[in-house]
């Protein structure tokens, strides 16, 4: 066991550093072509890197001041499915622009009526000749307004049980019939989220990802990956300020002199440190090619309320000034690139979302209890019925 990160003189570090020295201002495309965007993928996209090498690449990229393209849906969630389930033509068409960030992706998954029950989605895709025709209404689509490619899950077989009749498609977001409406959150800001209306959207049949009926399998795999990607220390799904910055800020304004707040701050700090260790352990387990322990899946369950505590404590330390829009809690505020959550005030008002997005806290606890502890599964009386029948009964 060794809790040190790979040292400065680590032999695997040199070639990476050399590359960045030869390419001092790499474009995203150069980074992608060097395999640095998805180093754990097979060649030619990646470097078949283990977790240690991934970490080294992350660090060297940061040191060089280079940023990977902001295309999280492709890079963290969905593009990997093309390796396992895509056609060669799909890989050639989509992966290059996705990894270089030239084409932003979005996930057309959630629906207004669905909530936690994704498999109950109502968007229908009907086969007509060599196209599918799609009608439906999606919500919580992050980056839809910037995306070129949408990963759509829709129902192709309404008469099968709800998990079985779903399929996935790679949709051009400029196809006629797609309308995008931004969602304004409680802070009053437009954020990354959107509603997407699909009216008779025609998708060529060769944009089906995998086979018909594999939509549920693909979607849950992609969402699972998202959870792992969220294991950074920031309060908002890994982004934004962390407990360390909280304690520094509180010290700066003298708020730690209050005994009760001091105790709370210490508690949040410890929680933050331990969650950081938990994330490192997941990494180690993956690195050692051991089956990851439960800590990967439970990380979000713990990190989401932790993040809420971090920003809530900062907000509370502001007293009534915290109710003035844009008021900063601490004179010194770290900047995190173009991350909007690096603003404490925005992070606070956004924070209720962290126990809602990517699985509500309640669903996540069910998952942890059922998968990790083997407790009995919640019965879903509609799971085995043909979806169309369950839908008739409910209405």
């Amino acid at each position, binding site marked *: 066991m060794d809790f040190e990160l790979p040292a400065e003189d680590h032999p695997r570090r040199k070639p990476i550093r050399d590359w960045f020295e030869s390419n001092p201002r790499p474009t995203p495309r150069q980074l992608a072509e060097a395999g640095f965007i998805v180093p754990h993928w097979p060649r030619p996209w990646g470097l078949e890197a283990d977790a240690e090498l991934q970490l080294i690449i992350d660090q060297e990229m940061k040191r060089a001041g280079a940023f990977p393209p902001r295309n999280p849906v492709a890079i963290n969630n969905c593009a990997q499915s093309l390796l396992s389930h895509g056609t060669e033509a799909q890989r050639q068409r989509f992966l290059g622009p996705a990894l270089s960030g030239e084409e932003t992706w979005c996930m057309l998954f959630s629906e207004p009526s669905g909530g936690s029950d994704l498999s109950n989605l109502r968007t229908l895709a009907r086969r007509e000749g060599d196209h599918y025709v799609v009608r439906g209404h999606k919500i919580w689509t992050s980056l839809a307004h910037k995306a070129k490619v949408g990963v759509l899950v829709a129902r192709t077989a309404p008469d099968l049980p709800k998990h079985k009749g779903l399929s996935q498609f790679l949709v051009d977001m400029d196809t006629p019939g797609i309308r995008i409406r931004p969602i304004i959150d409680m802070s009053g800001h437009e954020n990354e989220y959107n509603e997407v209306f699909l009216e008779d959207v025609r998708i060529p049949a060769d944009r089906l990802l995998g086979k018909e009926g594999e939509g549920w399998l693909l979607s849950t795999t992609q969402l699972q990956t998202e959870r792992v990607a969220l294991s950074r220390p920031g309060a908002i799904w890994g982004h934004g300020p962390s407990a360390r910055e909280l304690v520094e800020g509180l010290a700066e304004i003298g708020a730690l002199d209050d005994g009760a707040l001091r105790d709370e701050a210490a508690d949040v700090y410890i929680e933050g440190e331990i969650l950081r260790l938990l994330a490192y352990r997941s990494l180690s387990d993956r690195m050692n090619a051991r089956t990851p322990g439960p800590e990967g899946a439970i990380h979000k369950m713990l990190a989401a309320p932790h993040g809420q505590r971090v920003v809530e404590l900062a907000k509370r330390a502001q007293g009534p000034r915290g109710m003035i829009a844009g008021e900063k809690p601490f004179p010194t505020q770290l900047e995190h690139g173009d991350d909007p959550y690096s603003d404490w005030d925005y992070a606070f008002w956004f924070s209720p979302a962290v126990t809602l997005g990517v699985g509500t806290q*309640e669903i996540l606890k069910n998952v942890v209890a059922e998968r990790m502890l083997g407790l009995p599964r919640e019965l879903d009386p509609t799971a085995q019925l043909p979806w169309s029948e369950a839908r008739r009964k409910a209405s």
Partner: protein
Amino acid sequence: MDFSLNEDNLLLRESARTFLEKEISLARLQVPGATVTDAGYAANWSKIVGLGWQGLVIDEAYDGLGLSCIELAMILGEMGRTLAPSPFLGTLFGTWALQKGGSDEQKKTILPGVAAGTTKLALAVAESSGTADGPCREARAHRHGGGYRLTGAKSFVIDGAAADWLVVAAHDDAAGRREFFLVDAGQAGVQADLLAWRDVTREVCDLRLKDAEGERLALQDDELWPWLRDRILFALATESAAGTQRVLEMTTDYAKERVAFGKPIGGYQAIKHSLADMLGRAECSTVGVLYAAWALSEEHPRASLAAAMAKAFACEAYVAAAHRSIQIFGAIGFTWEMVNHLYYKRARANAELFGSPRTQRARVIEMVEKKAA
């Protein structure tokens, strides 16, 4: 002995609820970028004036109804329940200050106008840190002819921009302590700037004073402020208890309707138990507030304690309930177009104004210690 509301109380509450449910709509606030002005702030006030609520606690000698904090709680609760935007609260705070602290002359000049609905008031007491207790560092008053001139700043003035007259706490240079002054808001030396207040159902301002004329209230700070603070805390607690109750109802209704995995989410224990907890805390808030109302109306020795306890409990319960409500509504509950965030913001604002729940707890334990000693 009767710990319950009487029939008159219930009737008053019922009529207020009927009125507000008919007249108050938050729809205009559900549009992003909406401000308190869009929310019917002025129009609601006209309607309220039509019912005479602004004269509720004014003595009959000054054309008011001379009712107690118990009756007031019926009205204030319903205002809190609907988040009704209007200059009611600022006027109430100013009325209390004048009625308790003003000279007979000052009261005669101002209060009948308030009772008639032609005059609006506000109370400017907090510093920019939010503190309303203790010495005043940011505004000073010095004698000038027969009166005073005030210079400096006040913060967190509820309904400050709408007010015709202000009651302002400032450091009296001559007396060497904080005192309260009656200030005409219409004069050149008074400027009220709206804060970008997150709770868009309420108008909250910063105040800048530059050689503004003022007249000192008769009662000194150390006699006026404790009395006034108890009532302010009670008022915020009353709004909060009723808001919690509303959040509970609205969330319970949603939990009965919203279906996931084939049954209403209210059938899942996680939701069920959390609503049971919310109900428990809502009931506690309500009873704590009513006790404070009674203790204040009786000028009971435990009145200060009761008001601080009610503020601490009800505000904390309201914040928790409104936050939890967003979670139960799911992602949609976190968007601007729903009212959940309006309740959450009111809850947080009420909690922070005039001393947080933790501050109130510190005051409570101090009072208990002193009594024990």
